[in-house]
């Protein structure tokens, strides 16, 4: 069964450093998402991406964040200058557009020191 994959599973970085979180969505899906879950809190929407552009972003998704689909398979989330409060689990998801079920990846745990 096709699945969404994310790498790395755990990333540790120093405050101020840039990080890139990688996702490989399911191959025939058209909509892509990033969500964030701070430890002990709910899952929050960050951004949605369709037709090679951002279709919606939350207020969390400020200028420090960017997304890209550099080729036909990867979908990346970049944080330019990480802050302590960026420490969280980041989930990627994809949707084929025929119904409303998103398929979630296993997550990347980002720790900012």
């Amino acid at each position, binding site marked *: 069964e096709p699945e969404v994959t994310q790498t790395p599973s755990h990333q540790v970085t120093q405050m101020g450093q840039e990080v890139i979180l990688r996702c490989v969505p399911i191959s025939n899906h058209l909509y892509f998402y990033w969500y964030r879950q701070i430890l002990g809190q*709910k899952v929050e929407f960050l951004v949605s991406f369709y037709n090679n552009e951002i279709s919606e972003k939350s207020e969390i998704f400020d200028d420090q964040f960017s997304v890209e689909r550099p080729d036909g398979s990867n979908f990346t989330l970049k944080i330019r200058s990480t802050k302590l409060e960026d420490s969280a689990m980041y989930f990627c998801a994809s949707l084929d*557009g025929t119904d*409303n079920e998103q398929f*979630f990846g296993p997550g990347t745990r980002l720790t900012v020191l």
Partner: protein
Amino acid sequence: AQSVTQPDIHITVSEGASLELRCNYSYGATPYLFWYVQSPGQGLQLLLKYFSGDTLVQGIKGFEAEFKRSQSSFNLRKPSVHWSDAAEYFCAVVGGGTYKYIFGTGTRLKVLA
């Protein structure tokens, strides 16, 4: 704006007892609703979903949920809880044209032996 409320932050039940986790949503049109389970440090596992049709939905691991439009609710139930059901449970609704998910704050389930 769409929203999801899970009124119970923590619930404790004895193994073998029945379980009901509450979820209320706010959405103008017909909602698309989901329940996910998350074990500590793990990803999101889909338990069940409601898109349309029969308002009683069966899911994995013996869970079911009932959609009640008049009460704006989508409560999750299980007739007999197992110790392995201890986890965090999130209700979610699809919000808006970009199909993003809006999650509730979660209910942490503890199961007593």
